[in-house]
């Protein structure tokens, strides 16, 4: 049984980050109303899936990519789509370039992280998706906007400054919105590595127990009705470690996906 007694100080910025994990869509049926289609990515010869919600009449379309490693159906991704849709815009969600779905079907590099390659791959995918949607639903999509969270924002900002080229006729966008995007990726990941080592701040004699208790608290909270209004019962070390651990698991999945035999040989 988890010990919920708080020992030590809390860090609001870290707690807000942890709470963002629990941000989700409000209408439980919203994901079911989305349609899933796929597009052939010429460079990989594979089909990339995407999900979209159209309005009944023509309106500016918003393409959404979530944060590092997240799938297009992850709760934060669908929550952004719901927000966009309920404000009158069609929403289209694509998985992060660091998610196995994108890596396996649309990446030209086995290992994601190099922005010129990953950003270009995303741009190609969005071009294919936009073309497919316009073929399926003529005159339903208006001007185009990008909305990216964290790493998704970084890719979209790269796309926004990419000059048009005649080599690959990539679409252009009328608006780019980047939310909480890192400025220097390497600085960001060095912080995540530092966070993962936060457990070393505990006394060695107490470390295993503290780690276990932190995970037990997460498990208990996951079963309960945790809302955005709920104050999370984690001190600074626990919050820091949980964020570092979450991103370390994402890195594990990235490396695992890259090592998987299903990855296209370049």
């Amino acid at each position, binding site marked *: 049984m988890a010990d919920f007694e708080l020992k030590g100080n809390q860090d609001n910025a870290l707690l807000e980050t942890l709470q963002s994990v629990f941000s989700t869509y409000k209408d439980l049926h919203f994901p079911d109303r989305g349609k899933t289609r796929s597009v052939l990515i010429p460079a990989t010869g594979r089909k990339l899936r995407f999900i979209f919600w159209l309005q009944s009449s023509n309106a500016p379309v918003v393409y959404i990519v979530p944060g590092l490693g997240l799938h297009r159906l992850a709760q934060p991704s669908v929550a952004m789509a719901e927000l966009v849709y309920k404000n009158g815009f069609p929403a289209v969600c694509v998985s992060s370039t660091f998610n196995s779905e994108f890596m396996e079907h649309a990446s030209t590099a086995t290992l994601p992280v*190099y922005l010129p390659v990953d950003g270009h791959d995303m741009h190609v995918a969005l071009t294919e998706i936009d073309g497919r949607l316009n073929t399926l639903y003529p005159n339903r999509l208006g001007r185009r906007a990008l909305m990216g969270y964290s790493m998704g924002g970084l890719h979209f900002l790269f796309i926004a400054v990419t000059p048009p080229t005649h080599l690959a006729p990539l679409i252009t966008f009328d608006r780019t919105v980047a939310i909480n995007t*890192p400025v220097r990726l390497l600085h960001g990941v060095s912080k995540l590595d530092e966070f993962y080592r936060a457990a070393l701040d505990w006394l060695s004699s107490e470390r295993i127990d503290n780690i276990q208790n932190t995970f037990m608290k997460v498990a208990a909270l996951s079963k309960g009705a945790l809302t955005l209004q709920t104050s999370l019962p984690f001190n600074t070390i626990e919050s820091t470690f949980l964020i570092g651990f979450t991103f370390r698991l994402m890195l594990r999945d990235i*490396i695992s996906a890259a090592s998987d035999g299903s990855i296209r040989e370049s």
Partner: protein
Amino acid sequence: MSRTSVYKEILQTSHQDYIKHFVISYYATMGLTAVTADALERADDLRTYDAGLRANPNIRLIVNQNDFLLSSEDLV
């Protein structure tokens, strides 16, 4: 080797290890030797695209000042 043991081994890899040892080596084996650690650091730094970003009036940024991934120099 079981998936669990592979996962345990992978978990020892930090994000910086991934970039320095995996990604740089990968691009080198692909013949893209221009993707060095320094080149990658520049390419993944938004300040590299500063002029283009500032010149684009259609970009909107939403940033939290207490974002732990940003340093004070990033918020300038």
